[in-house]
């Protein structure tokens, strides 16, 4: 049923919709095609912004550098100790025979006695030659006198045995 508003509010005649539609499609089509690229660009921009913000935050959080101390190297003469401590010159090794020879050539009895004892120690310790050692010990006891019969801590087993034997022989002679 028609009323008084039909003339004002009724459907309006269509114009050239095709032309407007083509214009709309052209303009909006650009927006639609560009949308994925715009979205990617926004994501990249956001990511770049985050990285930049992180960098700035790191830079701000960094410790403020204090005054720079400059070190100058000055050459100073210092006597350096030798890399290895000076070692005493190695004593020349003297064999038991050489020591016995020195004893034979010694000028006095006491020196000869000491050298015979040393030669006996060498025969026994270096070469385990107890007969030669015993011979040298007997020569030592003959030249050292009765005071040397006292056993000391540095006497070898052979010298202790010879001292005991000498003491017993002297005791028997005394009887």
């Amino acid at each position, binding site marked *: 049923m028609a009323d008084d508003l039909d003339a004002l*509010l009724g*459907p309006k005649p269509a114009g050239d919709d095709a032309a407007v539609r083509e214009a709309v499609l052209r303009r909006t*089509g650009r927006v639609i095609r560009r949308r994925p690229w715009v979205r990617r660009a926004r994501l990249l921009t956001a990511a770049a912004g985050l990285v930049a913000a992180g960098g700035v935050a790191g830079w701000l959080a960094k410790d403020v550098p204090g005054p720079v101390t400059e070190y100058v190297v000055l050459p100073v003469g210092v006597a350096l100790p030798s890399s290895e401590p000076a070692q005493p010159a190695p004593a020349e090794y003297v064999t038991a025979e050489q020591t016995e020879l020195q004893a034979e050539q010694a000028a006095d009895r006491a020196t000869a006695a000491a050298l015979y004892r040393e030669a006996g120690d060498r025969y026994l310790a270096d070469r385990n030659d107890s007969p030669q050692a015993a011979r040298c010990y007997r020569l030592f006891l003959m030249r050292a006198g009765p005071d040397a019969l006292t056993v000391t801590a540095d006497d070898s087993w052979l010298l202790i045995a010879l001292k005991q034997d000498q003491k017993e022989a002297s005791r028997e002679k005394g009887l």
Partner: protein
Amino acid sequence: MTDDPEVWRERALRGAVLAGDAAAWSRWLGEAFAPVADYVRWRCGGLADLADDVVQETWLVAARRLGSFDPARARFAVWVCGIAANVIRNHLRARTRHRRRNRPLADAPEPATADADRSERVAVALARLSDRHERVLRAKYLDQRSVAEIAAEWGETEKAVESLLTRARQAFREAYGGEA
């Protein structure tokens, strides 16, 4: 979750268009263009120049804001018509401001014809109506629905729709007369 196949179809179209599918956009725009253009012409009171500007701006806004369109809440054409209503209000405000700044001399002849003047008054009066009044007038006069059809579609009684229609007509007359 809806079972309406039209909702699923529009969701698929939306997804394709958001991914940059220009062919999907062309198809979708083609389907909705005519009803949107009819609505814009009706809201503009038949002002062809205003309607063309509004149609172009409306579709541009729709293309840019497509991400906010929810097919479960409204059909695509209805959503675009909502955008068009806002664009029309903005255009009418701009035209009113422009007319006030460029008021003609008292003796100068009116450049606008009587038809154009009447069309603009219709457009302004429609823009002043509430959404519900505008909606029932649109269903009655633009879509040419009967009261019974409107009542069935909206889930209301014919009496309620008839009453609403009466109030809407009265509101339009007041707005149209006030504009005159």
